[in-house]
């Protein structure tokens, strides 16, 4: 790896927080490998990387939500390992997320004091002290929020202020902001950044994680790039240009692993979506899928890609537009109806929506096709077993037994069971939502191979992926979604990671300017 750890510019102070060789794995899946860098007081540290690069895992390790498998976190010169976020907070390390988890039916003051209510002499909650304290902390953020108001009625920005005020209750040394602006309006984001600058000027270290590169450029003094769960570089912000940053984030040697698509026979139109909209989520989405074609769908997390797929599949019925599947116009109402029409959807959260984890492999594979395996609604269990066994073999599921619970399989093998399950319905069109999310490299290559084979067999495939190299490797054509709108359609010959990334971020910039 072209790690450039040594290139950190000299700072006046000793680092506030040092990460040394941090590694984390979940079962066979590596979430972080050997990450080391320093965070200095009084500086804003931008942390960037694609989805799945390991940013969130790193935050969880720093705040004690996860324990590292290797490496040490050094705070103020002493190695620390927090057992939970409360302990981290008490030691001056706090994280604020894009959607803070507050208690909606309690007041602002109660939320700020949560876990440490001031007491009166007789042991009841000292409301006055609690409210004064909350007012004082909010004032430090320049906020005049009514401390007696219920949190339920407040905006996301106000939630974040409450969360930061909570952190200030202790001697705040390090504030981590994880995608803080993704749900804020531009003026709210500006106010948040004003607070961040103020904290920084008072000597607090701030780690800023955001997909919006212009925010990184605007706010950061130092920038760390993570890619593929590894540390790529930590440099002063002025050492980066936008191009260099994007290149460091996306350019990975993995590409060679991906099979280049062969030139396919692209046939008739199978799925066409016209002017599809879901109020408040996305609007005016039109695209087509042809038989034998793999269409990629890229964009930032939260752009609305999964939501579009779920609407097409009938999980959240659309408020506008229509879907035409194999020549007949359908108003999607339920997955049952769309499955019957010949569409299958492999959900993003495989473990939650795609499979019944506690059930056997057999029962998972046959759940959508029970009707075909039964007579007068009585299941032919012999046929069920042979069907499931054949499917499991076709998709090369590695398992102890076909009667084993899906929960006992690895991520990659679960994904193969999911493939077997949805392809068992004999769909004409298939939507794959993040099909290689959280699975190991070997299985990943197999999934890509599978996608290519399916297209060769004449299936129309839509692949949603936040993994840019994957998107480029498997797609014949790439649709880019930004903020609920289709902003670009790039043919494979013209597609590059930079181009897709630019399109995905482009609309965001325009809107926020």
């Amino acid at each position, binding site marked *: 790896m072209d790690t450039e750890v040594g290139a950190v510019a000299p700072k006046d102070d000793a680092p506030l927080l040092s990460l040394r060789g941090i590694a984390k794995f979940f079962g066979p899946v590596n979430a972080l490998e050997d990450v080391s860098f320093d965070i200095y007081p009084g500086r804003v540290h931008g942390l960037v990387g694609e989805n799945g690069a390991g940013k969130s895992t790193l935050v969880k390790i720093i705040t004690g939500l996860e324990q590292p498998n290797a490496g040490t976190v050094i705070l103020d010169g002493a190695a620390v390992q927090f057992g939970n976020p409360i302990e981290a907070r008490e030691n001056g390390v706090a994280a604020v997320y894009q959607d803070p988890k507050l208690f909606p039916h309690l007041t602002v003051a109660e939320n700020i004091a949560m876990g440490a209510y001031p007491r009166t002499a007789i042991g009841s909650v000292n409301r006055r002290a609690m409210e004064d304290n909350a007012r004082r902390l909010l004032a430090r953020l320049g906020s005049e929020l009514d401390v007696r108001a219920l949190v339920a009625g407040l905006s996301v920005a106000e939630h974040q202020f409450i969360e930061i005020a909570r952190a200030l209750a202790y001697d705040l040394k390090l504030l981590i902001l994880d995608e803080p602006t993704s749900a804020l309006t531009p003026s709210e984001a500006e106010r948040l950044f004003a607070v961040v600058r103020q904290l920084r000027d008072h000597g607090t270290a701030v780690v800023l994680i955001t997909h919006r590169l212009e925010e990184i450029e605007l706010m950061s003094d130092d920038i760390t790039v993570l890619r593929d769960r590894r540390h790529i570089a930590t440099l002063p912000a002025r050492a980066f240009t936008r191009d260099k940053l994007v290149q460091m984030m996306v350019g990975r040697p993995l590409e060679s692993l991906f099979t280049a698509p062969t030139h396919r026979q692209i046939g008739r139109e199978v799925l066409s979506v016209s002017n599809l909209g879901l109020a408040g989520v996305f609007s005016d989405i039109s695209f087509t899928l042809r038989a034998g074609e793999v269409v990629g769908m890229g964009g930032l997390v939260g752009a609305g890609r999964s939501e579009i797929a779920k609407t097409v599949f009938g999980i959240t019925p659309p408020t506008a537009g229509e879907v035409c599947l194999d020549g007949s116009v359908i108003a999607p109402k339920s997955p*049952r109806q769309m*499955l019957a029409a010949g569409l299958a959807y492999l959900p993003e959260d495989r473990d939650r929506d*795609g499979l*019944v984890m506690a059930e056997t492999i057999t029962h998972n594979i046959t759940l959508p096709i029970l009707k075909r395996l039964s007579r007068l609604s009585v299941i032919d269990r012999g046929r069920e077993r042979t069907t499931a066994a054949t499917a499991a073999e076709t998709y090369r599921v590695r398992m102890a*037994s076909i009667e084993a*619970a899906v929960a006992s399989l690895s991520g990659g093998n679960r994904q193969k069971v999911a493939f077997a399950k949805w392809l068992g319905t004999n769909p004409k069109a298939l939507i794959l939502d993040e099909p290689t999310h959280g699975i190991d490299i070997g299985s990943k290559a197999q999934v890509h191979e599978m996608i290519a084979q399916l297209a060769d067999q004449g299936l129309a495939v839509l692949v949603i992926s936040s993994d840019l190299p994957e998107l480029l490797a498997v797609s014949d054509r790439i649709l880019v979604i930004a903020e609920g709108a289709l902003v670009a359609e790039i043919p494979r010959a013209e597609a590059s990671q930079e181009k897709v990334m630019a399109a995905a971020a482009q609309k965001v910039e325009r809107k926020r300017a």
Partner: protein
Amino acid sequence: MSRKIALPVWELTLVLMVIAAGAWSSTLSEYYLSVDQIFGSTRFFIIPGLMALGLAMVVSTGEIDISLASTIAVGTVTLSKLAAFGVPAPIAIVVVVVVGCLCGLINGLLVARWKLPSLAVTLGTMGAFRGFAFIVGSEVGYTDFSDAYLYTGSEYVFAGIVPVSLFVFLAAALVVAFVMHRTIFGRQCFSIGLNADAAWYAGVDIVRTKILTYVAAGALSALASVVWIGQYGSARGDNADGSILFVVTAVVLGGVDINGGRGTIGGVVLALCLLGTIRNGMGLANIGGPSQTVVLGALLVAGVLRPVLAAAVLKLARRPRAA
């Protein structure tokens, strides 16, 4: 994997517990081990048994129905009205089963279509159905049933040893077991109980399936009300009041996960045998009603605790390997 091994183990345990309870009962009375006594004791659990079969279907999807005892009162009162009008018994039985289906339909629509919490819904209908039964029924209770009305719940066949209602129960148990373990419907019920989202994504019609379980539970309770008339000969608004504890205990002790997704009808039937034997034995031992209720409640809690305890034991057994 765990399912294939764990459940038969529990069912075998239940069989052993039934034998143990029977052995205990036999020490209490020298008449216990007679054939007619044993068959006679099955009468103790046929009414709650029919309800438990229905409740097991509802619980398999992760829902609950505590209104079933009130459905029985609606059923008995309906039968009394039909008897008073001189409706022939077979027709009356069909009508009362339809009424039971309607009670279930109300629950099902509220829970599945309008997505209301089933505990609150059926607590409400528990009160509403019973109130309805009190209003429609007479204060004193109707006892003027013809023999044809009483037959199902009171007659014995095979030299007067085996109650007719036992056949009704066994037939119902076989049908429910077949539906739950061999048909698409049953498989879909369990898949909803394990993961409703995944079931919905896989094309399962959750609303329809859940409504059908409630309708079936209502129908089975209505059938239980027919047995009730035969056993007690009286129809009043307070019929079967308080019997839901026994029913829920049987379902949970039978190994049906109260959160849905797991369980067998065989286990429920065995749990009914166990509870029936214990209750019969407690009667022989002159243990009073309140104490019996304490025992039932404790068994219910034990039934709910069982998977938790099993998980704790499993965790303990695993720890040395993980460390």
